[in-house]
């Protein structure tokens, strides 16, 4: 990716999404800077999933605009932006009938990726990163939830996305898996990617996040940097109450 400006950026303005007769997200203004991990918090139904879906361009906003690396959604279209987003969701999104490496290979081909030593090498490297090298030739249907989650993470990180959306990324992971995932997230943070994570496990979030965005009933309840004095849990309680 562009070496001169390593910092990616995601910006939303008056981002609004309505379903039928109610709003899931109302006029959200926010800027997410590259190289920062943003914790996205809020009670159930606050609009977290909707925001994730909007940022990943799976949903089209009812109103408002979205920029990734300065390119507006309404101008370049969803398909261009989509390629710059990595998404880890509630579901693992892996094909059970394919092996781990075939899963990654499929998406590598869809994203049109290339590697100096061939795609196989790229896939092997990425599997190594998430600790799945040994399971590379096994069909994913036999994977535990934690292994599938690792594969899902590897899939999301495959194209080195500008924006990384992590919706409950630590589900099913063991201690070692969480540590690996954290390391990966930090690696991509160092690369300058925008990282937005949402999890109910506040202790991990506390460790990795730099800023926080709290949603309440589709509106912004708090946004700003985290400080040493204010713990994430406290902040969350205060802004949601």
């Amino acid at each position, binding site marked *: 990716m562009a070496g001169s400006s390593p910092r990616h950026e995601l910006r939303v303005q008056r981002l609004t999404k309505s*379903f*039928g*007769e*109610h709003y899931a997200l*109302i006029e959200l203004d926010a800027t997410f800077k590259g190289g920062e991990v943003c914790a996205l918090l809020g009670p159930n139904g606050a609009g977290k999933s909707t925001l994730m879906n909007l940022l990943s361009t799976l949903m089209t906003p009812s109103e408002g605009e979205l920029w990734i690396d300065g390119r507006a959604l309404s101008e370049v279209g969803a398909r261009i932006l989509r390629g710059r987003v990595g998404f880890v969701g509630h579901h693992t999104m892996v094909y059970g009938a394919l092996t781990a490496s075939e899963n990654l290979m499929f998406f590598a081909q869809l994203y049109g990726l290339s590697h100096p030593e061939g795609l196989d090498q790229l896939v092997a490297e990425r599997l190594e990163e998430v600790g799945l090298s040994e399971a590379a030739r096994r069909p994913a249907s036999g994977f535990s939830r934690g292994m599938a989650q690792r594969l899902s993470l590897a899939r999301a990180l495959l194209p080195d996305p500008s924006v990384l959306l992590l919706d409950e990324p630590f589900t099913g992971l063991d201690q070692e898996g969480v540590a690996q995932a954290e390391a990966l997230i930090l690696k991509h943070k160092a690369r300058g990617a925008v990282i937005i994570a949402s999890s109910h496990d506040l202790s991990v979030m506390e460790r990795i996040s730099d800023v926080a965005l709290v949603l309440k*009933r589709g*509106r912004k309840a708090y946004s700003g940097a985290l400080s040493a004095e204010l713990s994430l849990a406290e902040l969350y309680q205060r802004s949601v109450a």
Partner: protein
Amino acid sequence: MSSDLTVGDPPKPSKAPLFWMTLAALGMFLAHWLVFIYAPMEGTMRAVQRIFYFHLPSAWLCYLGFIMCAGSSLLYLLKQKSKHDAFALACAEVGLAFGVIVLTTGPLWARAAWGVWWKWEPRLTTMAILFLIFACYWVIRSFGGDSPPVRKFGAVLAVFGAPNIVFVHIAVTRWRGDHPNNIQLEPEMRVVLYSCLLIFIIIYALALRLRYRVHMEERTASALARELSRLGG
């Protein structure tokens, strides 16, 4: 704050529908006089031939409704404007109403004229299949909720469904080439037919207009409710 509520005030209920309704009602009476008293008795089919004066205009308008629905659906797919979708829905509904008329009066006529309720004849088959497609459309629109994906599904159905008919017609014509006895219309019959057509067009336009308005107003209402939830929340 009030600027948030400009979701498009619904137009004032005008008196125009009442005028047109009166015109349509009067037209219906005129049509009765024309059909039952003025029109001459047809030689072979006799009384039952008079069904034809209602049947044929209904069939034309049914087709018109479905074609307009398909056109409006195409516009909706391309432009994503809610009004096109509402118009398509209204057209389909009006078309279906006329379709019911066609498909009930048709067999009644066929039974008395040909001795069978149904004949595998191009026009009948075409109409029946078109009716089925748009009945599906209506069922999906009525029971599927009113979300954009459902609207789109309906639009695709209409856009694919209407041109389908050309194929059905060509196919059945090739298969069962016998056209029904083309009735030689006497001048009086022609007068009756075209007057009936005119009156039915008025009814069609009226029904379409009312229906479209209802759909638009329902959308305005739900938009208003949405804005209210936004302001209140």
